[in-house]
């Protein structure tokens, strides 16, 4: 059975424990997008950051190992969505593109799964970065 969702503070009322910190408020969001888990590392959530980094980067690397396709251009709506998903991986996408890693075309069945792994890793990376932002702003309590 699923556990009950997090309590979100009522609108107009400050969070129960605002995570008041100085500095640029969007830094964990941007860092979390560029490097998986970095947003949580900035907030000193070492365990969560390490697990997120291992999961997201692991999924990305597994996708590459399955000869997944790295989208570099888009000709139809599905390719556009896949390209956006790939871009959500942050620096990992740009580094692998620069190194020429990743298949240009899907040729085997596992490559199709690999392509999906890479796209989903990007989407999970965005969720992780937004979570770091919520921790930073106090919308989600720092435990």
């Amino acid at each position, binding site marked *: *059975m*699923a*556990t009950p*969702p*997090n309590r979100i503070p009522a609108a107009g009322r400050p969070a129960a424990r605002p995570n008041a910190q100085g500095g640029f408020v969007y830094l964990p969001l941007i860092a979390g997008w560029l490097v998986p888990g970095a947003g949580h590392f900035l907030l000193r959530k070492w365990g*969560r950051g390490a*697990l*997120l980094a*291992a*999961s*997201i980067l*692991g*999924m990305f690397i*597994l996708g590459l*190992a*399955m*000869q997944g396709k790295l989208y570099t251009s888009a000709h139809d709506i599905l390719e556009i969505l896949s390209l956006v998903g790939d871009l959500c991986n942050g620096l990992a996408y740009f580094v692998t593109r620069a190194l020429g890693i990743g298949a240009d075309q899907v040729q*085997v069945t*596992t490559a199709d*799964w690999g392509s999906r*792994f890479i796209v*989903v*890793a990007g989407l*999970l990376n965005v*969720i*992780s970065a*937004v*979570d770091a932002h919520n921790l930073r702003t106090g919308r*989600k*309590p720092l*435990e």
Partner: protein
Amino acid sequence: MTPSHFTAVLLFALCASVVFGITMRDTPRRMFRYGLYCFALFVGSAIVLSWVMFLIAR
């Protein structure tokens, strides 16, 4: 790397469940429980849908 379809499902479910658990809940105990719940749903639904597709194809 050429994993079997079921191995790919397990790997996918494991990675996604870890992220879902950490991001959707706020205490470690609840994160773990929710991650486990997501993992079971991912794998369980994949098995059920596989059987449904197998029976439809017959």
